[in-house]
């Protein structure tokens, strides 16, 4: 009897959460996969021997992350977002965090919204110098010695911004500053889901730091779930 009650309670919670996710008023979903065709450039090992405190954190050398691929030709670190059709949104109050750990940027691609607080932390035993290279937003570069609290900043215009460290030339990352909350960054499987989209016509853009961007138009009616896939052309060099 007790088992049955627990089972029922679990089922109710599951159903409730599915309803909350997919059947919210006007909650359509766009999901899909980002893959590549052709031969992508090989990741190269990074020599960190000049910074022993970082080198010793990695049992095997860290590889370059300009193009990161997964199983079945999936492509990682692609920002998939609604570039047109959705209204601009105010930034959420919770900050996003950009870590410097083992002389690497984590995550390699960080997506967040216009005016959302960006926290940059140095977890290393060495100084870093964070230098984002925007073309539209305000440019700055700041040093962050070890043990200092995270620094914060905001960007007021949407833009894809490369980030480098002025002390460790191999360190490279990207900020994706977006206008609304409908975005995803692909991980190992290359898949993405954009949920809670009210009915309407949307332009979905997939952006990759090396392969550029692609767009597709999708129309959502009711709470339907649509699939959109992106295929990038990979280059060996």
């Amino acid at each position: 009897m007790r088992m049955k009650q627990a089972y029922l309670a679990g089922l109710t919670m599951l159903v409730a959460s599915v309803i909350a996710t997919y059947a919210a008023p006007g909650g359509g979903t766009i999901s899909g996969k980002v893959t590549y065709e052709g031969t992508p450039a090989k990741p190269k090992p990074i020599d960190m021997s000049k910074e022993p405190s970082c080198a010793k954190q990695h049992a095997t050398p860290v590889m370059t992350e300009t193009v990161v691929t997964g199983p079945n030709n999936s492509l990682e670190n692609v920002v998939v977002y609604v570039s047109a059709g959705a209204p601009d949104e105010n930034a959420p109050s919770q900050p996003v965090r950009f870590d410097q750990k083992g002389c690497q940027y984590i995550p390699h691609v960080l997506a967040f919204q216009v005016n959302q607080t960006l926290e940059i932390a140095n977890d290393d035993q060495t100084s870093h110098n964070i230098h984002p290279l925007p073309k539209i937003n305000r440019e700055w570069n700041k040093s962050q010695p070890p043990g200092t609290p995270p620094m914060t900043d905001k960007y007021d215009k949407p833009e894809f911004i490369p980030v480098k460290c002025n002390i460790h030339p191999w360190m490279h990352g990207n900020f994706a500053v977006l206008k609304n909350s409908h975005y995803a960054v692909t991980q190992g499987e290359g898949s993405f889901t954009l949920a809670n989209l009210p009915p309407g016509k949307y332009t979905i853009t997939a952006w990759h730091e090396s392969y550029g961007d692609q767009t597709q138009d999708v129309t959502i009616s009711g709470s339907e779930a649509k699939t959109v896939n992106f295929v990038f052309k990979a280059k060996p060099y």
Partner: protein
Amino acid sequence: MGKLFAIILTIIALASAYPIVVHKYVQPVDISTHGHAIDEQLSDTMAEAGFAFLGAQLLLAFFVWKFSNRKDGSKVTHLPGGAKLMVATAFILVGTEVLALGVLGQKAWADVYFTPPKPDALQVQAQAGQFAFYFRYPGADGKFAPLHPDKIDEGNGNYFGLDPANDVDARDDIVTGELAIPINREIHLLMHAKDVGHSFYVRELRIQQDFVPGLDLSLHFTATQPGRYEIVCTQLCGLGHYNMKAYLNVLSQEDFDKWLKEKATEQ
């Protein structure tokens, strides 16, 4: 009081010379074929400067001792010729010293800078940039592909600005973060500055040479002892200067070949 000053002066002069005379500060190990000439030159310079220093201090102490506390009221006498003669003598003495060091040292200098490397020397390019050194080996074709500064993409491992998509020669160039070299083989180091002035200093190699933006400078040397040595930048080049270093790895020919092959697969 004057005599006490003479004694203190003598003690200070002898105490300063002592650690040098007994070689208290030993030179780091010398791993190059030309290093002994540099060491001899340094040692000659130290001896010459040391003798001049001790001579001057002890002479000063002697005069202070001899002529202090004079009670007979005799007039102070000068060397004949006055200040002019003193200045001329000092000029000739110092000039001779500098000239002598130059003449003695010219061979050590000429061995590195005025003698071309042997034709079979191994060519390696060294690039200094804020704030790291990178090295390039020509690969199987023996050719260094041209550099395209606009292609530099450090996040993607393209530190030199190679263009392998359009330039076949660039595809086999081997770029590394450490300078590995075979032992007992002459190395012809081609020096390239990516941004500002830097310097290549390996104390065990007895080499310190600036990188100058826009100038293709080169060095040649032969390492005679295996090991891992630090390469540091000794020209203040910016915020991360303190952190600008790399390693020189002197390997046996066999280990070097293996290392180079391994690096070639990583490109």
